[in-house]
């Protein structure tokens, strides 16, 4: 297949097709009430669970920047975690589209090749944005107070969403490369759970055994959670030696690196996807 040059017309077409498919994928969320309900209630329930189950025990171990309230520590972490969780529907959505022959139809149409993946990941990003804002709203209602300014908070949410979007491309690769839906579910949980639990999302990493701590402190979700804490609670919320700008840039670097690897990979798998 010849690689056609990117002309303004082709670019415009790709945008139109991406918009058409983003809308289609978003409508699936809006029109299937059970999906909408579960995908919004679940993250909030999780948040409340962690808040009230862990909260009391942890408050004493928190750095002063949390002002003695676990919710101040938890919300930035939960937002980082939700952004990652919010990427997993990309895998299921693409897998279903392949199984139901929808991707076959798309591939037989004279349409922009990039639109199917872009439309899927952008729809999932939109939904993630809503879920994060919902969690943030509930968090604020329950007493979360950011200690910096609104710009810091907005930047924090944006960093989390950008990282979640990058994770969507991992999930896209997974959803197209793995045939079996249950296998995908297993793969998603195998990757997402350890990474979000063995991190600073819920608890400071200082009480973990040394070998685990080394992993927990350097893995990307911790970096993102720390960046969010720095941006919302200030320098004092970060482990010694880290700066707010440093963690933010590091989180963005992880985001860029994941996209750089997994976007081309997902496109490759998509082109070869044969059902």
């Amino acid at each position, binding site marked *: *297949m*010849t690689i*056609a040059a990117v002309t303004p017309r082709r670019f415009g*077409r790709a945008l*139109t*097709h991406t918009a*058409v*498919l983003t809308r*289609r994928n978003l*409508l*699936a969320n809006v*029109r*299937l009430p059970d999906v909408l309900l579960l995908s919004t209630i679940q993250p909030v329930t999780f948040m409340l669970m962690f808040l009230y189950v862990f909260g009391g025990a942890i408050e004493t171990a928190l750095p002063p920047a949390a002002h003695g309230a676990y919710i101040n520590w938890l919300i930035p972490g939960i937002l980082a975690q939700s952004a990652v969780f919010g990427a997993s529907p990309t895998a299921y959505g693409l897998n279903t589209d392949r199984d*139901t*022959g*929808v991707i*076959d*139809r*798309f*591939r*037989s*149409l*004279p*349409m922009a090749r990039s*639109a199917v993946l872009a439309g899927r990941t952008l729809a999932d990003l939109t939904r993630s944005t809503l879920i994060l804002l919902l969690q943030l709203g509930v968090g604020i209602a329950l007493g979360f107070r950011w200690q910096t300014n609104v710009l810091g908070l907005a930047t924090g949410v944006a960093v989390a969403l950008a990282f979640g979007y990058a994770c969507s491309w991992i999930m896209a690769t997974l959803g197209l490369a793995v045939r079996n839906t249950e296998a995908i579910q297993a793969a998603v949980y195998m990757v997402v759970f350890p990474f979000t639990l063995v991190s600073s999302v819920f608890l400071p990493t200082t009480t973990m055994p040394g070998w685990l701590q080394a992993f927990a402190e350097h893995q990307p979700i911790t970096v993102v959670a720390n960046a969010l804490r720095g941006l919302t609670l200030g320098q004092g919320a970060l482990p010694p030696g880290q700066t707010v700008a440093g963690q933010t840039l590091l989180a963005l670097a992880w985001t860029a690196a994941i996209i750089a690897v997994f976007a081309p990979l997902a496109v490759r798998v998509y082109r070869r996807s*044969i059902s």
Partner: protein
Amino acid sequence: MEPIITVDRVVKRFGRDVRALDGLSLTIPAGVIYGLLGPNGAGKTTLIRILATLLRADAGVVRIAGFDVGRDAEEVRARIGLAGQYAAVDNHLTGRENIEMVGRLYGLSRRDTRARTATVLDRIGLIDAGNRQVKTYSGGMRRRIDLAASLVGRPQVLFLDEPTAGVDPGSRRELWELIRDLVDGGTTVVLTTQYLEEADNLAQRIAVINRGRLVSEGTTEQLKDRTGPAVLELSIPDTQQAAAIDALRHVATVPASYNRQRGALVLPAIDGVATLREALRALDAAAITPTDVGLHKPTLDDVFLTLTRSDHTTGQGQHFAAVAGTGTHEGSETS
């Protein structure tokens, strides 16, 4: 008539051992319903997928409307429509939204998409139901929406992979009507089917495919003629089955075979009644008395059987007899 599709010595392998298509060649004239007929695993779907630019052939050339499906895939896609084995429609969208989405992806403007969607909805008789979500539809309605979506871009060629699989008989006839109408509008339709009745009813030309090769090609009538004017059916006691096949080996050009559906040995009767007389004489010489004898006009079933068997060694005959039996239609009366 000018061919709109040419398939030239196409080979497609899956893994090292499976040759899904094994040097298949075909030409399909414009403006006909063309049936690809064959048992499961014959290579029909693989061929459709190559034609629809979803798969690349390992060797050979395929051209649609003058464009190479490998090199000019984009040009080909602008001229084809595809309705796969499942109705690839979204449950959460209305019928109209499903069709409009495909219209936009074909590159139609918003206004053209709306107008064109109204036209195809009218054509499939779902103008009113078009505003309901697809999840409320019956299986037949889903198929019709899927068909309409594949038509919205005004394709020159429409590929239908088992268009009526899993659809009730009533809806099947409606779909056939629809497909016939399409050809009146100038669209070339290429469909795969395992239902011999479907090919017989719909297709003007048929390619019989088996094991990735073309076994036979022609109009429905030509194919039936190849079996001879009649088919001979002989009911033989089980214990004498093998001896009977042996005794009959010189009676026809292909060996007789046991047809499970009919519970009898069948073989083409090239010379009609003369063949019948010869067969009875041969059995008599082997001291075998058939319990029942029949001579009937060949159905596509018989065509299929004869053609796929004469192409291969006898060992596979039984297998295809069994496969072909699953698609038997009700009109195969014995005289």
